């Protein structure tokens, strides 16, 4: 063994082995490189060294189309891991080639961090809502384990469905209400969070255990929803699935719903939809997207043109709300403005704030149907629940005094008081005198809301209202707020704008910030996009809407609102770019309109209260800038002038 020959032999043998080893090694490296090149570098167009060394900057080196092709699989792999276990590491991504796993995790985090509750760690991606997911999976497995083997739901399955409902409700910030069972349907009434979608405030959440859904399933849903719903048929429906999936149950149910009259009512949420909601950073938005994917845009479009707007669609007016809320217990206000300018919405907002603040007790009374003091007392009692010892001003005073002594300062918010004030005036304003006395005694302060009637009382030195409530005229919205009124609901609806800047500028030029016009345009633009089956609003949509008779008539009617014949005549005869009093008098004379200076003065004052005219020094200009152009380009103005002259001659105000 020690001989040199032997040593040589050993050396030779070792040398041969080393060679073979080197060759094998070289082959292996070549194979790895070739494989890497073939599988990774070549398809992605990467230099080999970049594949091995520069994976962090894959985006910079990779061929775009190849990466685009590969990414959905990688993304799905990451998503599957996250949804199943609540986290993902490179080792978990078996279907992704080794060198790209970290890239996949990083890219997923970057893409979805704004919308999913992701937390990125070195070499690990975690969902903050993982616990919620695990509870859902556990409930899902229990609820669907024996699906289809017998009719109805066992108590165990119902308990599992309760878990599912609890998880979903928790994620969405809903409140669970009463529950009902119908065969294989378990339904809950839930109260919804504030979404910028037109949804009922309460609706059923329904879990359905039919492995093969069809028309009968839809009928079962209708029966279940009928009992629980408060208003419409809107409901969220989650079909349970068996552990081994043989059929896309959610898709089948969706098709059955599509064939029924309730195609716009039932939103079917598949397991994937729910999981998306559960991992969403803003689950309510996730739900909104699911809803929008299934129903007509116009069904959930939140733009409101009739009546007061809901809380979610109330924008701006912060200064007015603040003024009312902060001073309601020490001062009285008269919110005056033209129709559709948002008076009732403002009052409802103020009432909600006052309620939430808990420092005063608001008593809101809608006086729309009230024509006299007796009617006021009946309505007051019906709407506030406060019993009056007698239906007289004294009875009202006594009841409010008692209530005041018991607790918080009182604030009465009286909406639509015009007709009542007109009747009051004829009787010497005894009720108004009581209000004033109560306010001066500090028993109760008042916020009146109205239009012409209220404005005239405020300006009448013989009226109790003169120097009583502080006028709070309601005008148009600021441009910033006006933009929000349009943009935010559109964002919720997932609608984009063609040339957003131009479109918004045109909307502002057209509406001058009138809240109702913006709502009108918003509604019309959503309808136009919906007709094209797109989620995109075009400049042409706005142009078409603007030129429609429906819009121009609506615009002019709304601008004029409560304006009387003289006020309307003024707006029709004056030059479009502004005028002085002398020019107005000349224009009226030219049209054969004779009015006293006092009447003209009142008319101009009302036009300013209605926010139709504004005055700079001695020049009046139109607040709605598009008004003159729309008026003269769409109307037979001479005929309209004739009508108003006729009305004026007939004593119309």
């Amino acid at each position: 063994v020690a001989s040199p020959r032997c040593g040589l032999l050993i050396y030779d043998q070792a040398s041969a082995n080393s060679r073979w080893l080197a060759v094998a090694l070289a082959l292996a490296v070549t194979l790895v490189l070739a494989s890497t090149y073939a599988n990774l570098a070549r398809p992605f167009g990467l230099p080999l060294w970049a594949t091995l060394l520069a994976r962090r900057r894959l985006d910079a080196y990779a061929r775009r189309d190849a990466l685009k092709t590969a990414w959905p699989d990688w993304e799905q792999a990451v998503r599957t891991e996250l949804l199943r276990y609540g986290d993902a590491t490179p080792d978990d991504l078996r279907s992704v080639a080794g060198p790209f796993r970290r890239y996949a995790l990083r890219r997923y985090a970057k893409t979805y961090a704004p919308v999913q509750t992701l937390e990125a760690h070195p070499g690990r991606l975690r969902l903050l809502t993982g616990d919620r997911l695990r509870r859902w999976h556990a409930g899902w497995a229990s609820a669907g384990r024996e699906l289809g083997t017998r009719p109805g739901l066992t108590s165990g399955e119902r308990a599992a469905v309760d878990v599912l409902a609890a998880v979903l409700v928790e994620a969405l910030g809903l409140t669970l209400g009463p529950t009902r069972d119908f065969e294989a349907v378990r339904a809950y009434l839930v109260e919804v969070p504030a979404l910028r979608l037109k949804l009922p405030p309460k609706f059923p959440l329904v879990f359905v255990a039919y492995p093969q859904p069809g028309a009968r399933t839809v009928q079962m849903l209708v029966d279940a929803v009928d009992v629980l719903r408060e208003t419409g048929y809107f409901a969220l429906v989650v079909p349970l699935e068996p552990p081994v999936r043989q059929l896309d149950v959610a898709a089948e149910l969706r098709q059955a719903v599509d064939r029924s009259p309730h195609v716009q009512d039932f939103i079917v949420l598949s397991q994937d939809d729910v999981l998306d909601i559960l991992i969403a950073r803003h689950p309510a938005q996730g739900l909104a997207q699911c809803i929008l994917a299934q129903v007509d845009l116009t069904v959930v479009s939140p733009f409101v043109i009739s009546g007061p707007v809901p809380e979610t669609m109330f924008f701006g007016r912060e200064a007015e709300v603040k003024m009312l809320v902060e001073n309601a217990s020490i001062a009285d206000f008269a919110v005056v403005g033209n129709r559709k300018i948002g008076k009732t919405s403002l009052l409802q907002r103020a009432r909600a704030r006052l309620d939430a603040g808990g420092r005063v007790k608001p008593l809101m009374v809608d006086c729309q149907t009230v024509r006299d003091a007796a009617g006021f007392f009946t309505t007051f009692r019906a709407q506030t629940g406060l019993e009056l010892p007698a239906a007289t001003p004294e009875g009202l005073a006594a009841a409010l005094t008692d209530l005041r002594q018991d607790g918080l300062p009182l604030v009465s918010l009286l909406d639509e008081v015009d007709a009542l004030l007109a009747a009051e005036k004829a009787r010497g304003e005894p009720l108004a005198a009581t209000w004033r006395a109560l306010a001066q005694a500090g028993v109760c302060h008042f916020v009146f809301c109205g239009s012409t009637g209220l404005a005239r009382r405020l300006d009448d030195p013989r009226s109790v209202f003169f120097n009583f409530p502080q006028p709070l005229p309601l005008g148009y919205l600021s441009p910033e707020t006006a933009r929000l009124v349009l943009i935010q609901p559109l964002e919720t609806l997932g609608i984009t704008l063609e040339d957003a800047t131009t479109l918004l500028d045109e909307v502002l030029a057209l509406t001058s910030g009138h809240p109702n016009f913006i709502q009108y345009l918003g509604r019309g633009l959503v309808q136009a996009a919906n007709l094209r089956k797109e989620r995109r609003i075009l400049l042409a949509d706005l142009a078409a809407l603007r030129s429609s008779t429906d819009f121009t008539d609506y615009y002019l009617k709304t601008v004029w609102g409560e304006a009387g014949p003289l006020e309307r005549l003024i707006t029709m005869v004056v030059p479009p770019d502004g005028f002085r009093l002398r020019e107005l008098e000349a224009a009226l004379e030219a049209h054969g309109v004779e009015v006293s200076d006092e009447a003209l003065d009142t008319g101009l004052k009302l036009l300013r209260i209605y926010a139709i005219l504004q005055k700079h020094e001695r020049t009046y200009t139109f607040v709605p800038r598009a008004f003159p152009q729309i008026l003269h380009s769409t109307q037979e103005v001479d005929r309209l002038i004739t009508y108003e002259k006729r009305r004026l001659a007939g004593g119309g105000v």
Partner: protein
Amino acid sequence: MGVFVYRGPLPPDSPLFRGRTAELARLIRLCQGEVEAYAIVYGGRQTGKTSLLLRLAAGLPKTVRTCRVDFQWVPGATTRQVFTYLARRVARSLPDLVAAPEVDDAPSLVEFLSEAIDQPEISRLVLLLEELGALPQASRNDLAHVLRAVFTNRFDPSCRPLARLMVVIAGGVELYDLAATQVSPLQNCCEAMYLPDLSEPEAVGLIADGLTRLRLPHTEAEALGEAIYFHVGGHPYLTQRLGGALEAYLATGELPKPAHVDTAAERLLSGNPLLHHLRRALIEEDLLGASKALLDGNLRFSRLDEDMARLELLGLATEANGYWKVRNRLLARALEDWLAASRDLDQDHIDLAGTIARDKPVCVFISSTWKDLQPEREAVEDALHRMQETAFAGMEYFGSRPETPREVSLAEVDRSHVYIGIFAHRYGSGITEAEYRRARERDIPCLIYLKDDSVAVPPAYIGREPAKVAKLEALKCELEVHHTVSTFKSPDHLATQVVTDLHNLLGSAPTVREEEPSYTRNKFEELRDKILKIIYDHERTGTPTFIEASQIAEELGLTTIEIDEQLEILEWHQYAKLAKAGAGNHGARLTPLGKQRVKEGLKS
């Protein structure tokens, strides 16, 4: 029953119901989804509003309750009566609601509605309101304000069930002030739906299907449909009416040709109830002058033009290419005729105004056959006696004279300022025609009335002699060509029309003679209130008290016409008809015999 239906609304399952797909879908959506607006279905008379509402009610799921409220049943009702009637209708439509509501004012109505809807099995209540025009302006407005308040406060937690109330109002020009102007109470809470005419394929398809069912080849049926569309442009009633005319022609065994459609259209122009109503409405709404501008067709379309908007709601105007146009060719022809007649009347008015200015009574000659039209003559005579400006002239007052009846009659015509011709189904001796011709010769303004074909007539009152039948037909054709002929269904209907026409002709409201029993509007309303109260009391107690109502009417010194108006209010009670029978023929008051007959009827 024929294939084509032009009397009353179409049943919900009628195959003749065409079009309105978009309107129906929208209404169903509004009635089922979140209440975002109430709906107003605008349409002139006979444009299918009620048919649409019936179809809507039938198309809604069972869980959505509907309550149709037709205010025709309570014409002239006060606000309180309207609220009570509405509450009762709602209570009846919700069988589970046992308690009959006592509704005095708006708050109690709102409270009642809230309670009524707040039942677990009621998911939605849809109120279908019709014929608001039957109510006085004040009642209408009060009701509108309540609806607006309900709408505005539907999300208020204290009246949450009201969010499940949907209101659909159907009507025409009577809704203009209520909902169409900016200061209208319903303007801000209603979505307006203007019922369009049928499209050409719908109208042609309707006629073609109907005629094909009557075994006419489809190609020919389509050609006739196109001919009808040419005249009436898809007007639902007029399309069916002309279809009905062709159906009648087919029944004679001959095949109709498009030329027959022209003839049928001409006949419609000379005496159709809808056209008659439209003409009357134009006069009442003071829109005859505005219709001239409509015929000119160069006014830009905008509903801010009050006159045009009212003409649209009457069913005469529509939009075409951005301009106001008359709705179809037939209506355009009718408008032209009415305007021409109005120009003639204006001239007559000038002549008559001179007579009135000289403080002389306007002598009105009533011409008709005697045997079959006595009640009509009495009713007209009674009405004329109460008009201060007029003096009645007719064969009743000729007395015994040496001249022949014809000579006497013609001499009386010569002395008269206005000629009223009443025609039915007898030609008579020919004096009536002679009287008419003399009036024409003397250029005396003629008011012509024909008994409606739908009124049943005893065989004895129908002329049988072929020669006289032919003469009568020829005379009627001539009348229709030369005059705006009105049709009447009853003596009082005729009397009302005569008074209105004379009022238009004389250019002033008829003055009531002081010496005659008169009534004021307030007294009228007072009576109506009393009668309604008695009916409501009866509904509560189950005691028949109609005779008391009749006695009150009598105590108030009312005559047949007024009593009949009241009876119309009561007609929804089965014994109202008995009471009418009890009122006997059209004498001045309820006679003891009449009362006895009512009692007997009630007992039986």
